[in-house]
């Protein structure tokens, strides 16, 4: 304490004894705070420098060697003309068709009738969206079933709660790619492994958010139902569910946004849908196809996000955007 008064400005004599004490105390706190902040920043800086060095060392190409060539690849993505992107997206024949995979746009058409067809990438996009939607639905239904068993205010049995919570944690933390890979081995290629992988993760993720909502629910309706002799299921169904449903749906919509992204990534490692098409076309430098898929993905994600945001705002108002605060 004395060191602080020596290094800092001396305590003014005009202050009374108590005043001086308060000022010294404040200074002490300020210095300690600053020290903590400085320590935190230094620690972060060292960790960052170490991380970046390590990442650069273990990367195939070094950062500064590759930086000038960063946009070479973008240069390879420029199509022959502006219409190529649309031709690739809607499977129209290309004037540059030379029989190679690069320009064979019409080949992927999925025909309904003789003339009516769905373009390949639109179909794959719909498939990816359906993977996300179905997994969100499965996750919602099962997470809904589980969450009430994990809520402190509804289940008195500590062990049941503990078990259900750990179970959901494992479902959530288990790497999706392993589940997808395992079911790929069982079902062979296709969308089902992706659906299972994303659903299993969604059950855990939604289950956790759901039981936190349930724990914050107003217990007076439940009390009322208990007073008239309602059993556990009736109490939950008529007392809790109506309160929490808007929040549940809101979280499920948020999860749907995340799942659309997740199912493209799972698709890229063999789970079907548009992810795989994107990985192949980037890998083979098919510029028009890549741009078409990127554009399609971009538009889809923007549309899904906007729709979900609109619906969530309708359901729960602005608190729908409190994301990452609750936990």
């Amino acid at each position, binding site marked *: 304490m004395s060191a602080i008064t020596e290094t800092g400005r001396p305590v003014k004599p005009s202050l009374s004894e108590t005043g001086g004490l308060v000022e010294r105390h404040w200074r002490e706190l300020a210095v300690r705070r600053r020290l903590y902040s400085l320590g935190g920043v230094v620690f972060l800086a060292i*960790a*960052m420098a170490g*991380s*970046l060095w*390590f*990442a650069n060392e*273990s*990367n*195939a*190409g070094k*950062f500064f060697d*590759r930086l000038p*060539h*960063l946009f070479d*690849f973008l240069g390879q993505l420029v199509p022959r003309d502006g219409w190529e992107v649309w031709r690739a997206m809607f499977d129209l024949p290309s004037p540059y068709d030379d029989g190679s995979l690069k320009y064979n746009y019409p080949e992927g058409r999925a025909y309904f009738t003789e003339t009516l067809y769905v373009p390949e990438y639109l179909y794959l996009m719909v498939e990816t969206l*359906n993977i996300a*939607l*179905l997994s969100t*639905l499965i996750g919602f239904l099962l997470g809904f079933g589980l969450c009430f068993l994990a809520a402190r205010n509804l289940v008195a049995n500590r062990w049941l709660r503990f078990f259900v919570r750990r179970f959901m*944690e*494992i479902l959530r*933390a*288990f*790497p*999706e*790619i*392993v589940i997808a*890979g*395992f079911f790929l*081995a*069982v*079902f*062979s290629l*296709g*969308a*089902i492994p992706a*659906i299972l992988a994303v659903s299993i993760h969604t059950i855990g993720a939604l289950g956790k958010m759901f039981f936190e909502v349930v724990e914050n629910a107003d217990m007076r309706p439940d009390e009322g139902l208990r007073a008239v002799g309602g059993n556990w299921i009736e109490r939950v169904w008529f007392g809790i569910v109506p309160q929490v449903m808007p929040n549940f749906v809101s979280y499920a919509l948020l999860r749907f946004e995340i799942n659309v*992204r*997740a199912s*493209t*990534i*799972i698709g*890229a*490692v063999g789970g079907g849908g548009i*992810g795989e098409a*994107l*990985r192949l076309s*980037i*890998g083979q430098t098919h510029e028009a196809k890549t741009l078409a898929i*990127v554009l399609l*993905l*971009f538009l889809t*994600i*923007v549309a899904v*996000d906007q729709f979900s945001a609109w619906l969530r705002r309708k359901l729960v108002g602005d608190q729908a*955007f409190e*994301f*990452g*605060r609750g*936990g």
Partner: protein
Amino acid sequence: MASAVTTEMHEVAERYPAVLKGSLRKRRISWLVAAGIVGYLMFAWWFFSIGTVFANAKWDIAGAYLADWVSYEVRPNIDLREDHLEVKFTRFDPLGPNGNPDWLARETAMIVKSAPQAGGAGGGVSSSSGSFLGPAGGATAPAGSDGATPIPSAAATPIEPSEEVVRATVDFSGAGTVDIRPDRVTVTRGDETLVLDIVRDVAVNAQGPLPSWATQRSPGDKVVVYFGVPGRAEIESDEVKIRHRFLGWANFVFDINSPFWGKSAGEVFDLVVSGDRVEPSRSNLSLAWNNFLYNAEWQHLDVWTKLLETIVMAFAGTVLASLVAFPLAFIAARNIMPNRVLNQVAKRFFDLQRSVDMLIWALFFTRAFGPGPLAGISAIFFTDTGTFGKLYSEALENIDDKQREGVRSVGASPTAVQRYGVVPQVLPVFLSQSLYFWESNTRSATILGAVGAGGIGLKLWEAIRTNSDWENVAYMVILILIVVFVFDNISTALRQRLISPPGAAS
């Protein structure tokens, strides 16, 4: 009493039908939602042809794969020769190429092998097994010498008598035994016994009907006998394949090429502490550590390095994204930056970054930087700059204006107003959001690796796709789970400190 209440209830219900029944519209909506869900599930069943896929799934393989997570198989093949057996372990067997486990009892005898090209199946040692059933280890067993003489004339020169296995007994951890002789295999499970006569290279014939635990596609074909968890045996006309399963991970510490392999923990400890040097050039401790890190089957060092890459990807990507999003969020916040055009530009920029899928960024940067964590860091950085920008600017727009006014009213400069009026309010929220994403990015980084963006993902994916390294998958999954749980707890603890009310802290 009860009846009175009941009648009153009916009366009340009649008086206020709307309260108890709910509006027609509401009820109709809930039915519509339920019907919609069922309808969609039926559509999905058709769209993904789930029924067909489930019917065609390889469920039997799934069980074996799952068992591989926590157990391993030892797979000796026992070749049936004319008058003796040859026990073979593959080079990659958990017991090494020269395994000699005590559950595989061998009985040997001195016999003269006829040259391989000697005659057909009928020639050679005619007396066959019966006379060779003498006690094991009969080094001077005369039994072999008598039968050795009638060698067909077409045969090459006779070979010296040598000690060969004439009978092998495999014990499946008490679940049953398989007793193998060159011309007869006897399988015992419980109190049932199955005797199989082998016509070498031609057929396997069962004596009597097959019990429920044995299968044979057609008469003479190979017979597979199952012992449940401990394994199975396939009896063919020229060899017997043993698949004996044990719980645990084989050779987790030292692989079969290590001098420490097969030693108990105590023996290894003694060697390390006080034993003679196995390799004169270095100490036993360094040799053991080296052998452990470069274990050929488990590749501990490589797995750990790749896991560190994943952690680094998530950490560096999240920190960089937070640092870049911080100033940009001030530009995007309507109440901080009065310029509407700049607000909109910044916000649309965040939307753009968020809406380009992390997968696209990952594939793009994998092309740009080559496979490795740099690509992963860049992908996380680009996606999360958008996410953080959006979240941060929303937090900024929700701040309490009084503090800012207070700082401004004493004549502070605009920078000071931001520093003392705004930042103290939002910094905990910002940090909390970054921590939340740090934890979730650790998980995403695992998947990103599989498309080439560095980290444990690719290693994991390769192990999965071989379909035979499920124990390595289990090992990596456990490591990932540990890392995720630890980070989850750190992040939750830090966030609770950050966003708890000021009174509770310090």
